[in-house]
């Protein structure tokens, strides 16, 4: 039973580091990347917590979240690409919206 606790602690530490990257990341792509990794870590956390609580039926939610994470990342990438990114006036903000 305690192996799930170890996995949960590892995933929470990784989530913390991904959160720091999402807040700090200078360009928008760092944030997209961090949120994608955060989504995968949430999938792991929900699955491990399902086993920890003795109810592995939580895996349905993991599957739903894996789907939504993918769709969200592709949607965000599409919006970023078609937005018309760097303004000709301010070259300093290249890569940041």
């Amino acid at each position: 039973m305690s192996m799930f606790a170890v996995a949960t602690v590892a995933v929470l530490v990784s989530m913390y580091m991904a959160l720091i990257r999402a807040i700090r990341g200078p360009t928008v792509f760092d944030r997209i990347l961090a949120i994608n990794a955060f989504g995968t870590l949430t999938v792991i956390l929900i699955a491990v917590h399902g086993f920890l609580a003795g109810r592995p039926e939580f895996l349905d939610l993991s599957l739903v979240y894996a789907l939504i994470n993918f769709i969200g990342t592709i949607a965000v990438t599409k919006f970023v690409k078609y937005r018309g990114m760097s303004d000709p006036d301010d070259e300093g903000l290249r890569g940041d919206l």
Partner: protein
Amino acid sequence: MEMVLFVLSWVSIIAGGVFCIIGAFGMLKMPDVFTRLHAASLIDTLGIGLIFLGLAFQAGFTLVLAKLAMVLVFVFFTSPTGTHALCRAILSDGMQPETIDGSRAVLVDEPETSPDEADEAEEV
């Protein structure tokens, strides 16, 4: 048999957790967005793969194993696609990786050029 499964699942879960932490730490410490992308892909492949392998050893031959396999198959297909799409978006925005010799990465969209010219351009 129980003991073997127990040891195997412990080893897999601990290894998966270690890889998750390594991937997240790499994402925090790497200097460039391309290298961070490379470090974060550790979580999507080894992290989730090993942890779910450990959970599968605990689950036995039930419906739960089928669900774990489904999530793994889905992540196996979508995680490289998402990383590739993100990298193409970064390159089409104009950011370039920091290289030692100054070589640049070129985004290859459609092979409109002749095959000789397409061979000269570096494929991403």
